């Protein structure tokens, strides 16, 4: 018993020692390299949502490599400090706090999910460190404060533009809405319905599902009874592909509309014939003949051996906007960087021209893509 107790105390002591020495060392190393400009990223690198976080980190990495290879910013190299958030709010808050007070970063690209961004952003804003999220599309993110920016198309904007496009360009007037019950689906559905109403149209039926559902027959039967011309699906490609297939099996002939959650090669793989003719909004199109886009796609493929997705492209642009602001500011002082970021206007990126509104939200061109012969094609 006594031996055991000794063991416990020793392990306790070891823990405490480890905690303090472990952290102390990191603090020291971060002070050594004053010569470089430090940029952090926050996002899930592990856990269920890791694919988004890894894409984001990779996009930023490509941008930083490109700048460092061409001599850095005003002669200074940039170092990237990626931090894992596991997709968890408390972890994202911790990671952000660590980047700010321990690694002394000049700016942060992140966080990736809307929920973790809403938890992490107040910390960056209070500390006066600029933070650009390249994927937090939920309402309220840029409203956190002057230091918070975002470089992605907001849910409200894309749903509104697609509704307008569907009514005015496609001349559709009978709509059904099917959305996933989370922040993304909820925001898409609300805006789509509101925009329809402003155009004197009313959705015939609004149904919902939960991410991970496999059987949509109940919703499809209800929707089919109203005979719509088009179904707006506010959700992600996995479910969208299944919905399209099950609708086809039931003989429902409609046009499927969707948001940027559709944009993945997996939509084509999972959906097959059923997703032919699907129309959706997106912030990035990797077949764009634009020289910069192709340069990015080639660099990404060479380094990570896979096609870049929208997360990577928007993160790349966010990093480039940030680097441009640091160049113009001529210093790594966060307040000066923030002032330059706020002035960003018509920045020519690979996801279109970007400007920031007064509260830090991006104004971007929104692309509309269509599935034709088993491939994505830009139609606007």
């Amino acid at each position: 018993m006594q031996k055991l107790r000794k063991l416990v105390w020793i392990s306790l002591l070891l823990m405490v020692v480890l905690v303090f020495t472990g952290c102390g060392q990191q603090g020291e190393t971060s002070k050594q390299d004053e010569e470089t400009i430090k940029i952090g990223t926050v996002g899930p690198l592990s856990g269920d949502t890791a694919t988004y976080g890894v894409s984001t980190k990779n996009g930023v990495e490509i941008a930083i490599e490109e700048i460092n290879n061409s001599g850095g910013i005003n002669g200074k190299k940039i170092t990237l400090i990626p931090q894992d958030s596991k997709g968890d709010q408390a972890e994202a808050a911790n990671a952000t706090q660590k980047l700010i007070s321990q690694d002394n970063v000049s700016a942060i690209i992140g966080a990736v999910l809307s929920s973790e961004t809403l938890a992490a952003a107040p910390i960056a804003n209070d500390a006066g460190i600029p933070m650009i999220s390249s994927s937090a599309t939920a309402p309220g993110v840029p409203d956190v404060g002057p230091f918070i920016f975002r470089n992605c198309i907001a849910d409200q904007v894309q749903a509104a533009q697609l509704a307008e496009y569907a009514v005015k360009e496609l001349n559709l007037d009978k709509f059904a809405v099917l959305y996933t019950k989370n922040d993304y689906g909820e925001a898409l559905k609300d805006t789509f319905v509101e925009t329809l109403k402003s155009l004197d149209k009313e959705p015939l039926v609004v149904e919902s599902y939960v991410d991970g559902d496999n059987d949509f027959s109940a919703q499809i039967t209800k929707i089919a009874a109203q005979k719509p011309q088009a179904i707006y699906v506010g959700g992600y490609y996995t479910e969208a592909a299944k919905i399209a297939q099950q609708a086809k099996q039931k003989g429902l002939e409609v046009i499927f509309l969707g948001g940027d959650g559709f944009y993945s090669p997996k939509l084509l793989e999972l959906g097959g014939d059923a997703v032919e003719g699907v129309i959706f909004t997106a912030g990035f199109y990797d077949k764009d003949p634009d020289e910069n886009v192709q340069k990015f796609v080639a660099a990404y493929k060479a380094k990570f051996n896979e096609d870049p997705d929208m997360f990577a492209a928007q993160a790349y642009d966010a990093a480039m906007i940030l680097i441009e602001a640091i160049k113009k500011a001529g210093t790594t002082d966060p307040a000066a960087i923030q002032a330059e970021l706020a002035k960003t206007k018509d920045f020519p990126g690979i996801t279109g021209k970007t400007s920031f509104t007064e509260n830090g939200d991006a104004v971007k061109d929104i692309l509309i893509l269509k599935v034709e012969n088993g491939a994505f094609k830009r139609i606007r």
Partner: protein
Amino acid sequence: MFNAYYLQVLVVVGINTILALGLNLITGITGQLSLGHAAFMSIGAYTSAILSLKYQLPFAVVLLSGAFMAAFFGIILGFPTLRLSGDYLAITTLGFAEITKVVLLNMESAGKALGLAGIPQKANVYNVYVLVIVVVFALIRLINSRVGRAFQAIREDEIAAEATGIPITRYKIMAFAIGSFLAGLGGGLYAHYLTYINPTDFGFLKSIEILNMVVLGGMGSIPGSVLGALILTVVPEMLRFVQDYRMLFYGVVLIFLMIFRPNGLLGGVSLTKMLSTRKRRNLETNN
């Protein structure tokens, strides 16, 4: 040395300690397996956050309201299920956690899937640790009281406990209510520290994470729960330097700890016992 980052991790350790202590009372001390601790945490978090945002009530009031609301739901849930012996509570709490999540996802006043943002940041290292100390002392007093011994008797053998005249249902509900109260308290602190809450944050994984702290620290041991919360909060932070492999290392650390200390780090160790044996040993050496 104590920059904002360490302080923040310290606060999260404190909040997790309160949560783990609550579950330890239910699972470790009274022996009733609960898999829905995060649901009670979410009830506390949402109640206190809504009161703060809508009515701007003082922090102490909203915190207590959240905790009492969680305890209230604990009693309602405990009444039908704790009359039965066996693992019914585990299944019921599992279901209850899912129901709570779905209700929050659909509740207009709870912000639906978007959650609640802009909650005033009232929790800090001082009030969190004052509460941790109060909770630890209250629990030590409780466990060594008549009630606490009844809890432990129920854990050891329900039939024997009943035979000695302990009304087991009442005591089980009591333990469950106190544990839920602490979960609600932790949830309120969590909401007022992070300033943003969202239903998906209080899922099954959160319940398991808290259960991990209790099991790792040692079931039924109060210093064990404190240590479990400390380790499971600090280790993932310390492992940040391995980046993508962080969760892999975290898993390895957990496996090794369970191999070498299957009863938990401080399984069967209680603070009072530790002090009293030392006293006795001192007496022996003096003689």
